[in-house]
């Protein structure tokens, strides 16, 4: 194989599984270490820099980082990355004086953001400090988008939303509430803005047009129903509630029904558990609240009697897995009695307010054509992000879209080509403190993942606004932070220092290291100290070693980042260095080393 290029940030970034998986590339191990040191303010700010809403996300994030976490491959359970984020947010002091501020002198550019969801708010967050005059048009009375009106308060308290949205709006964003934009053309024609960002989400719940759909008032669209609960328009529900669909919305619907007083709540799924869209932890939380989840049912019709909903009929299936694929055969029909049905089978985009003749192309699914890197539509100066860009996703994606769109808007306003994306950078700093001391907690800690404590059962149903998760105790936090393997503390190798003594190979607890004859990757993977069969994980391959002409190979898969290889290495050929990924944000490009500087660095080592 070619010697690994550790000069570009991608190699080491990929080793930090969580950070690589996070759409906004939050520096997870760094903030966990800061929490471990009790530096909650710093931990919060590290988070905020990339994900903007640590308190909100510490409660609600889809957490793609956790399934990626290396710890899962070591002891079966990922680090509770998301809930530690909440610890930083809850425990921090007043950090307002450390937040970005808008300059007194505006830069003379005006930007309109449509919708006040997380996508638009992120754009505002990034552009305000650069002196932009930012106006948000929001259809509703308050900011936050679905985070406020759809995510129930028992998962996300209002104060948290207000605080973190406040940090952005208080920079002086001009938010116009109750001002739905009814015509994009009009807005553009007014020429009041240098650029427009559309962050209007995917506001339409999918319909289920089967017989009986419109025969009762007790059949609701999930996201509208949740919004109605939020606005206080709905305060009761029947006793027996069916939720159709088993995604995230369904989970919030079934748990909300419980709180409105329903006694018998069933979630109905067409497929088997393996194919459920809801996250495992959401399913767990719902089942803890005695919500029943029924697999293998497909809706046929609603049954009403004198205008009253009394049940729903379903096709049933028997399911089996054949060659890893689900095979379902019919297994008769059944009627499940109920008095209320909530449809939670998905969301759609809808852009009735965007005229089709303004040079903004839509595709055959009626979705705007949006560039995946620049987030600009086919009409120059109009940008999209969040659920509005590519369909419903989640908050952290909306945030990342916002960051990227902000970069584009800034470059657009400066007249720079949008495709010249600013590059990211990396720094690697030594962590050696003494002969066997490192600037991080390198010892492997066998603590098990801490279980989140929930408010007792009858009590938690008494109000919609009782946050179910109590948050980690100090003790739990202390245990959980030590589970992090510090994947950002990288094993850096200098081949011409190695004397091939085997010390690192012998000490490595998880058999990551091998010195062997070089070969192509597939062959190499088979001839390592331990088979490298996780192909998603990289192999590091050194240059040729001096004494035998072999190469040093490291399979990144199960490295504990314990530093023992570096401790046992007599020549410092292995060293533990802290990797930091420097991400560009609008107006803050990452300084890149010039070729001359790079050559100089090379000559030194």
């Amino acid at each position, binding site marked *: 194989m070619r010697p690994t290029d550790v000069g570009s940030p991608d190699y080491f970034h990929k080793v930090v599984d969580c950070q690589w998986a996070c759409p906004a590339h939050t520096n997870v191990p760094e903030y966990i270490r800061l929490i471990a040191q009790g530096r909650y303010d710093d931990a919060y700010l590290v988070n905020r820099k990339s994900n903007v809403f640590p308190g909100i996300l510490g409660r609600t994030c889809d957490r793609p980082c956790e399934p990626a976490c290396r710890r899962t491959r070591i002891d079966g359970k990922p680090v509770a990355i998301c809930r530690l984020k909440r610890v930083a947010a809850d425990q921090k002091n007043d950090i307002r004086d450390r937040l970005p501020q808008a300059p007194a002198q505006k830069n003379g550019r005006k930007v309109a953001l449509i919708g006040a969801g997380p996508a638009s708010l992120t754009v505002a967050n990034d552009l305000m400090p650069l002196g932009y005059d930012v106006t948000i048009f929001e259809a509703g009375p308050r900011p936050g988008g679905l985070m406020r009106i759809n995510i129930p308060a028992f998962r996300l308290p209002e104060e948290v939303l207000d605080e973190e949205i406040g940090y952005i709006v208080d920079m002086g964003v001009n938010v116009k509430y109750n001002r739905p934009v009814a015509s994009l053309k009009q807005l553009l024609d007014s020429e009041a803005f240098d650029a427009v960002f559309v962050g209007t989400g995917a506001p339409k719940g999918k319909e289920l047009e089967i017989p009986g759909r419109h025969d009762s008032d007790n059949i609701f669209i999930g996201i509208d129903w949740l919004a109605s609960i939020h606005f206080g328009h709905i305060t009761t529900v029947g006793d027996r509630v069916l939720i159709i669909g088993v995604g995230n919305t369904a989970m919030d619907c079934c748990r909300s029904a419980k709180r409105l007083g329903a006694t018998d709540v069933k979630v109905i799924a067409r497929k088997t558990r393996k194919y459920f869209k809801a996250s495992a932890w959401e399913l767990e939380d719902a089942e803890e609240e005695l919500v029943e989840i029924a697999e293998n049912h497909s809706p046929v019709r609603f049954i009403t009697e004198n205008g009253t909903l009394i049940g729903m009929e379903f096709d049933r299936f028997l399911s089996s897995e054949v060659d890893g694929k689900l095979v379902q055969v019919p297994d008769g029909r059944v009627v499940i009695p109920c008095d209320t049905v909530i449809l939670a089978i998905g969301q759609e985009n809808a852009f009735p307010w965007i005229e089709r003749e303004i040079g903004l192309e839509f595709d055959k699914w009626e979705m705007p054509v949006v560039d995946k890197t620049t987030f600009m539509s086919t009409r120059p100066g109009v940008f999209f992000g969040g659920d509005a860009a590519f369909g419903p996703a989640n908050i952290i994606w909306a945030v990342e879209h916002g960051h990227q769109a902000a970069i584009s808007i800034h470059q657009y306003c400066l007249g720079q080509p949008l495709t010249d994306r600013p590059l990211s950078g990396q720094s690697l700093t030594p962590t050696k403190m003494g002969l066997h001391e490192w600037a991080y907690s390198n*010892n492997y800690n066998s603590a098990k993942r801490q279980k989140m404590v929930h408010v007792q059962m009858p009590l938690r149903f008494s109000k919609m606004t009782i946050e179910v998760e109590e948050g980690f105790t100090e003790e739990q936090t202390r245990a959980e932070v030590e589970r992090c393997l510090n994947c950002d503390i990288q094993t850096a190798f200098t081949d011409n220092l190695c004397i091939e003594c085997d010390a690192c190979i012998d000490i490595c607890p998880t*058999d990551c290291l091998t010195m062997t004859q070089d070969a192509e990757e597939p062959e190499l993977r088979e001839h390592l100290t331990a088979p490298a069969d996780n192909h998603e994980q990289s192999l590091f391959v050194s240059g040729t070693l001096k*004494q035998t002409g072999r190469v040093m190979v490291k399979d990144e898969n199960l490295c504990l980042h314990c530093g023992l290889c570096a401790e046992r290495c007599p020549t410092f050929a292995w060293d533990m260095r802290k990797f930091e990924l420097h991400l560009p944000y609008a107006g803050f490009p990452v300084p890149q080393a010039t070729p001359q500087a790079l050559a100089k660095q090379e000559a030194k080592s």
Partner: protein
Amino acid sequence: MSYIAKPKVHHPSLRKNALGLTRRDYEGAITTLCAGCGHDSVTAAIVQAFWDLDIEPYKVAKLSGIGCSSKTPAYFLREAHGFNSVHGRMPAIATGAGAANRDLILIGISGDGDSLSIGLGQLCHAIRRNVNLLYVLENNGVYGLTKGQFSASADHGSTSKKGEINGMNAIDSALLAISLGATFVARSFSGDKAQLVPLLKAGLAHKGLAFIDVISPCVTFNDHEGSTKGYAYTREHQIELVQADYVPEHSEITTDYEPGSVKNVLLHDGSTLRLRKVAEEYDPTDRDRAYALIRERQRLGEVATGLLYISPDAPDMIEQSEAIAEPVYNQPFENLCPGSAELEKLQLRFR
């Protein structure tokens, strides 16, 4: 010395041997030797060999003298018996242990200082008795533990770290062992586990004393230019005379070799040592020629490694002394101490 212990977690592919133990179960405490010390690699090779052979750690006694090398029994087979003797006395302790319990699997770890200076006489007599012992001499050319004085294995003309030249001739432990009639003599290198592990396994299977001199560089005091026991020097000058593959009993020999290039030696426990002659004219069962060839290589400035000499059928200490078949330690008290009447009878025989 590291402050943290080696974490217990391991790679999921780590296999279990016939006893249900992983290689990690054969480890000991974390090493306190200098980072990069050759002795640690020898330890790793020993761990591998015992694991490969499915040996129950409690059936093993680890014996050693004094020196960095002699510290290493603490770092492997944490569940085995152990005795860390005074300087140079490992062979005596091993002899006693073997006499008391012939079923014990003995591994003695020593250094060039421990074995070739203060303990030279001990080494010679253990070889003479052919104690059933795997004798590993971790040879670094210096007294590592006492900060790098030349040992008796330091080559004439080699220099210390500070540049002094060694004016005395070296004792070559392999030649010494062959001339004393050792029944298994090998030389290897800590940086070559592919060679060392099979030799260790063969040595464990061998009946009698299996002597393995392992060049094991002292990174701290003897890995510089001018040293003849460092990593680079050994790699440049090592020449493998005979490659030994250890084939356990019952396993089929599957690899094909060119006719005449392989010699199989049956060991007493039914396993086979398959010797692949790397150097053509070499016969590791011919003692005189083995001696001559090692000398010749030495004159050429080469370090001959591999299985240098073997005589698989010679009687070991237990056979030589016509001891009882049972281990002595579990004999009933009456057998071990038959009483004053029996003593009287015995004494009468010498009147």
